[in-house]
């Protein structure tokens, strides 16, 4: 494609959009919520299970959407598994900052904490596409009952 396209659609994003690793639905879920974008018709259904320590033990998503949306849902599920609610909230705020300001707006600690989610670092230059990446998060935060992300 082009250098800028490959920055936005990094190999990890394209790969997860083609073959998500966390697609599906958690059976006997402890939480579930939907996210939808009426402008493009994209929809995300997130289900989650908590462990005995109330941490997020399993997260699954059923996503009908663009590559950014599917990959974001998948990398979100992977990154948020194992976190408690405070950790989920902290990760969401870092991700939000990444989408708003790019890597330049983050400290070294933030970059390390975001891990795989850094794949979306260039999305801040595409304002009209940010919602594609945040849609799964609004569903996850609703499913987890954190009262954030709407």
């Amino acid at each position: 494609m082009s250098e800028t396209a490959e920055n936005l659609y990094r190999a990890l994003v394209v790969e997860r959009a083609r073959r998500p690793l966390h697609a599906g639905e958690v059976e006997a879920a402890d939480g579930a919520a939907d996210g939808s974008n009426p402008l493009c018709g994209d929809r995300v259904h997130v289900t989650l299970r908590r462990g005995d320590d109330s941490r997020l033990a399993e997260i699954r998503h059923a996503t009908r959407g663009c590559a950014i949306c599917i990959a974001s849902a998948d990398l979100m599920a992977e990154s948020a598994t194992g976190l408690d609610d405070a950790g989920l909230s902290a990760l969401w705020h870092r991700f939000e900052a990444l989408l708003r300001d790019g890597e330049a707006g983050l400290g070294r600690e933030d970059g390390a904490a975001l891990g795989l989610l850094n794949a979306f670092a260039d999305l801040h230059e595409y304002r009209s596409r940010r919602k594609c990446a945040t849609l799964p998060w609004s569903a996850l935060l609703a499913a987890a009952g954190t009262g954030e992300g709407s």
Partner: protein
Amino acid sequence: MNALTMPVPDLSAYRADFPILSETVRGKALVFLDSAASAQKPNQVIDAMTHAMRHQYANVHRGLHWMSERTSDAYEGVRDKVAALLNASSRDEIVFTGSSTNAINLVAHSYGSLLRPGQAVLVSEMEHHANIVPWQMLRDRSGIALRVAKVTDAGEIDLDSLRAELADGKVGLVSVTHMSNVLGTITPAAEIAAIAHAAGAKVMFDGSQAAVHQPVDVQALDADFYVFTGHKLYGPTGIGVLWARRAILEAMPPFLGGGDMIGSVSFERSLWAEVPHKFEAGTPAIIETIGLGAAIDYVSAIGLDAIRAHESDLTGYALERLQAIEGLTVMGHARARGGVISFSIAGAHAHDIATLLDQNGIAVRAGAHCAEPLMKRFGLTSTARASFALYTTRTEIDVLAETLDRVRSFLV
């Protein structure tokens, strides 16, 4: 000779009239294939508007001074240009509005108030939201019914369905597009008008797309209402047109109240101005109207027949190039179509396609195109759409096709 028989004209020299076409986007030459959303503006329009603001501007219809009189002349002169463009029988049948949407809302409020519960408005499945929602709002406040004529798999209005919806004689108004902003389908307006009239209904055409791509003759169509907008016709935003038969306009109550639409005002009672001013409350979009006049002069000088022939050639070429791309499906295949092509690529979302095209300087639209019911009819949530204008070239179609091929390989 008409657009269907004339040789393909070479309009490439006109590209130089559009300064924005020499811009670059993300380091690439701009390939602007989103003219159906809003067309770019030629110098002639830009200059006419800035000339008015620099040299000849005052409020219209009010002043007794030189500037106001001259500005009024320029403003009212555009009414004559629009009347000629549509072959209206009188300049008094031309109402300036803010847009096509405003024009349809005007009709829905004003003419709609003359409809009675039990009557219906009939639209088609291929309408823009602007020709659906005002009628739903009318339905909800006045108790009329909203009916919908089906669209065939080819993307044409199903005339049997249209006739069936009209059969009980309760439809007061048929309001359909003259050219789909999604499918590119040019509807058989004269035939639809005849069918509507035979059932006792009036007929309105949404010409937002059609008036840009072909000559329109409201008398030959036997239409009752026709609307279009300036910004798709290479003119500015903020100016649209409602044409309606004079007798209908005279029977309609005013829409908005204010200055310019009155004959006299007292606290007991006000009298309305004659048509078309009865429907033009407040200071109008003077500069924009002058810009629309320049746009009409511009396309008229080129010739809408020539523009149609050019775009028809481009559309045929684009269909050929795009359909050769693996996994690409064009939405609709109407027999009569203009320069709008919606498409999807198996395994690639329309927004990803649009973003990747944008990376290469190519502007297309992606989404539901303000026509969600039509998308649902075709089982789609979004498509990408390329649309053509008088300044579009075959080379740009080549760039689109080659880039789409790479986009597909990248995403799928």
